[in-house]
């Protein structure tokens, strides 16, 4: 083989090299570092080389760690509650607003504003609104005659409700905007056909619109679920995980294990557990997409064979 041909073969890899390099440095190295750290008993005062190798002890500790299990449970509860609420409200709003209203583009922009605010700011904003005496909620309740007010952030049940409300406020627009886009790309004529076939408004929603939107809705749901598992800032600012462990989600637990308890190895092990869970979700999404594509492909092939 001549040198020229060999150089030709290498050309594509040379073009890819910069991207691969960045990927390795920015992604694979930190992840590898974290995986390695999860096998160490490592405090921030040590260099990584000085830390003791402890094998799977960090992971074993997690299984018996009451607080971690609690925060894992809180995370799952939080993620499922907020994503369910956001899906229902987001899709519902999209169904309501899928019509030609004057100034719709303006409305849409206003709707997605919450998504554009930095999470820290959202947390601060809601903390002031939840304030027991001067916050808008309790002041309103007071003016309506409820002198007591609600202990938004100091009661373990209410604080969970409070963080759920804040998250729903911030992320419903995401689902709204995606489902609205999905809805507006539905085939108009199929809906008209349904109208002529005698479908009522509800029947059109249940039998035509939602089934047709399902692929988009499932991907949206998984994206939101992955995000909800990683939520940190808003809760950090709002409740800092309290009272007790009532709102301490895993991300917050990891943050505190590393910062306050100085257990880098254990924090890394927690991160890995979360990563594995998210990985499972992502793979789930990927597989779902593959199945969809495969089905579409098979259908196309079948149709083409018929045609010839």
């Amino acid at each position, binding site marked *: 083989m001549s040198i020229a041909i060999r150089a030709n073969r290498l050309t594509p890899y040379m073009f890819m090299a910069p991207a691969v390099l960045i990927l390795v440095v920015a992604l694979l190295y930190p992840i590898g570092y974290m995986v390695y750290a999860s096998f160490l008993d490592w405090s921030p005062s040590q260099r990584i080389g000085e830390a003791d190798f402890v094998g799977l002890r960090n992971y074993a500790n997690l299984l018996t760690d009451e607080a971690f299990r609690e925060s894992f449970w809180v995370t799952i509860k939080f993620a499922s509650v907020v994503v369910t609420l956001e899906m229902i409200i987001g899709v519902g709003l999209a169904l309501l607003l899928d019509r030609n209203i004057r100034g719709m583009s303006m409305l849409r922009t206003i709707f997605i504003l919450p998504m554009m605010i930095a999470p820290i700011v959202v947390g601060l904003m809601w903390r002031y609104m939840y304030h027991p005496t001067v916050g808008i909620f309790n002041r309103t309740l007071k003016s309506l005659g409820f002198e007591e007010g609600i202990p938004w952030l100091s009661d373990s049940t209410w604080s969970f409700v409070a963080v759920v409300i804040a998250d729903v406020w911030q992320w419903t627009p995401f689902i709204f905007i995606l489902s609205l886009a999905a809805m507006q790309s539905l*085939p108009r*004529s*199929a809906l*008209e*056909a*349904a*109208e*002529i*076939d*005698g*479908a009522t408004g509800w*029947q059109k929603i249940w*039998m*035509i619109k939602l*089934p*047709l939107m*399902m692929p988009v809705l499932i991907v949206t749901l998984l994206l939101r679920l992955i995000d909800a598992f990683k939520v940190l800032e808003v809760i950090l600012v709002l409740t800092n995980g309290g009272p007790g462990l009532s709102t301490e989600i895993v991300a917050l637990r990891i943050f505190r294990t590393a910062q306050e308890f100085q257990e880098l190895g254990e924090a890394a092990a927690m991160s890995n557990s979360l990563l594995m869970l998210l990985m499972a979700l992502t793979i789930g999404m990927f597989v779902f997409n593959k199945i969809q594509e495969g089905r*579409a492909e*098979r*259908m*196309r092939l*079948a*149709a083409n064979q*018929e*045609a010839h």
Partner: protein
Amino acid sequence: MPKIVLEGLVKRYGSIEVLHGIDLEMQENEFTVFVGPSGCGKSTTLRMIAGLESVTEGEIYVDGKPVSHLEPKARDLAMVFQDYALYPHMNVAKNMSFALRLQRRPKAEIDEKVSAVAATLGLTPYLNRKPGALSGGQRQRVAMGRALTRDSATFLFDEPLSNLDAKLRGEMRAELALMSERVQKNMIYVTHDQIEAMTLADRIVVMNGGYIQQQGSPEELFKHPVNKFVAGFLGMPPMNFLDGVISNRDGKAFVEGAGFSIALPPEKTAVALSHPAKDVTLGIRPSDLVYDPAARDEHALSLSIVVSEYIGAQTVLLCDCGGQKVEVELKSTIPIDKSGQLRFAINPEGIHLFDQKTENAL
């Protein structure tokens, strides 16, 4: 089956009026075809009958009852859409039975109806397929089947064949004609294809610019078009138009123009001579021009060939007559001298006259 009447139907979008008062009576079990160029208002009219567009002014009567305020589902009609409008997530059987399932008919009845219609349309092997796994022609059939299963009094078709390739379109057109004879229902059909209109219709309604230009049987419209638009729209190749002036030679009427001077047949003489305007357009269909080297001047056109299009048994010749274009058809077997002048005799019954200004027939 009901009689459908449109009365003074007007449609406005904001300040733009797209239909300017449509009056039409469709008889029972009649196959009515709305035909016209894009944007003439034919689809809008159909969608107003279906209830998919609101009526701005006027009224639609079905069996004497006004229906323009009713929802589509209350009007007892079925519709076939241009893009088929099948429900992509349902298989063929579910697509066809959708309306019946909404009516909560017994399952046995639904199955029976679906399999009967599927059998007539040759869809039985595909009942479990989704629309995505069907070819264009099959989807078209399913759309038709969905309408048939419903057993509605009226069928609406919105350019149902325009997404098919030419060969399939011809086949489906024949099947549609068969079907309409078999089911005996009101059919209202919209198309921009004059061949579909001519072959399928009991009554053709030619529309242009939001007005009905003319309505009647295909033969009536072909033989006696009321204006230049209708004359030019129906028939393939289209009618030739030659501008000229009416003159009176000893009581005989002639139309004279650049390169021709044609004597009008006796039955046209009186109208032509009494018509106030002298500037007219002579209309002659290609099929009314017969190759005849011996034809007399006053009954013939002398043409020189510009382009000759061989299409098999026939050859279409695009010719020049004193600067105006004329198309003629000729059997390909007739030997002609393509470089010289050819004489074509005019069939006297095929002479149409239109006022140049108003474009109305004389």
